[in-house]
């Protein structure tokens, strides 16, 4: 466990330094929201109806911004060797890297979401359910995204491949995330089941991502 905590601490600290990707996700998130707000124009009613789906979609895209570097940077500078070498279970190290990715790319987006939601005219009663759904659902993006990042390890121009591989895996989180955010805004009874399913998707991702990601890393390190 100490080794995994060391990896999380190192990755989060690296992400917030110059050259780290932590701010990139948040800046991308805000910029994408701005693009939607400008494109939809001054129709405030339309904008507020679309705010929750847009926020979820751009949160998903902003997770992709830094996913392709999840293992690639360590692979290139040799520190992935030391991580593999010290891991009793590589799956736990992949889990640690995913947790670090969420802490440095997912959590900042969740924290920035209320400010960005203002831009999209999200109705006041929509804030709490949206934030809750992002908080519960965005970790699934980091866990499942680790699979694509591990599969694309060592390839040039991996970022587009990571996006293609991760897209289908992200779909359930997106669907139930938006569902929960919308249902919560109108006090629908579907809110609780949607949030619970979203939590189940995150837990499933926390299991599948490390197992599949570790298998892909083992394969790619030897190729």
């Amino acid at each position, binding site marked *: 466990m*100490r*080794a995994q*905590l*060391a*990896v999380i*601490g*190192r990755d989060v*600290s*690296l992400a917030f*330094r*110059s*050259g*780290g990707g932590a701010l990139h996700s948040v800046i991308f998130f805000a910029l994408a929201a701005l693009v939607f707000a400008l494109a939809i124009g001054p129709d405030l009613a339309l904008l507020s109806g679309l705010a929750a789906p847009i926020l979820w979609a751009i949160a998903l895209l902003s997770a992709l911004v830094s996913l392709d570097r999840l293992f690639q*940077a360590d692979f*290139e*500078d*040799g*520190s992935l*060797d*030391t*991580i*593999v*070498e*010290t891991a*009793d279970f590589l799956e736990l190290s992949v889990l640690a890297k995913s947790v670090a990715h969420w802490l440095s790319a997912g959590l900042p987006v969740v924290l920035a979401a209320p400010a960005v939601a203002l831009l999209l005219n999200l109705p006041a009663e929509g804030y709490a359910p949206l934030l809750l759904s992002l908080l519960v659902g965005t970790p699934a993006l980091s866990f499942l995204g680790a699979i694509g990042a591990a599969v694309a390890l060592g390839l040039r121009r991996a970022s587009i491949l990571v996006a293609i591989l991760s897209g289908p895996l992200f779909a359930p989180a997106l669907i139930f995330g938006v569902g929960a955010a919308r249902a919560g805004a109108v006090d629908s009874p579907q809110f609780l089941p949607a949030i619970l399913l979203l939590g189940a998707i995150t837990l499933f991702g926390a299991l599948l991502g490390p197992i599949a990601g570790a298998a892909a890393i083992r394969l790619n*390190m*030897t*190729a």
Partner: protein
Amino acid sequence: MSESRRHNLGLRVEGLAAARGGRVIFESASFVLEPGATLLLKGPNGAGKTTLLRTLAGLAPAARGTAETYLDGGPRLRLDELPAPRPDRRAASIYAGHADGVKASMTGVEHLRFWARLYEGGADRIEIAAGAFDLAPFVHLRAGAMSAGQRRRLGLARLVISGKPIWLLDEPTAAMDAVAAARLAALILAHNAEGGAALVATHDKLPIEAPALILDARPPAETQ
């Protein structure tokens, strides 16, 4: 065998073969690396030195053959003296390759602390590692501001921090000056004196007298 030796673990390799991308890199490597011994791994480019070291480190799979650690005769080590809960190959060895394993935006001190946590329980060895590679003049710099030779010395400091008995080194003297290479040679000898073993791929830049293990280049016809 002296009681003061920290390590007591050797490596026995029999008929080891490795393939990479469907191509056989080397076949039937057999040797014994005894506790307290150093072997210099020699061979032309492409003979499979790096692949052999990575296979032994558990970072790449073997196609055939075995590589296992063994406890030297004499007093059996108590379980808590073993380098890791499982005395298997990966837990017993540390690999240092062409890449230094350092991050440009982290300082030397941060790297040493990180490795101490990663290799679990090496915190007391940070000072020893910094002394062994004379890191003091640049240890507070970011690795990105260090020279290639300084980064290499920083990267190799994790050998000492890890406390592992078997060192697998791939061209460790690359980018090093003569003084640093001599320090590394002295460190490997000190590691040997403690019972530690080292397998070092090198092109004669390491000033150390040790038996050589030669890997032959494979004729092109067989590599297809």
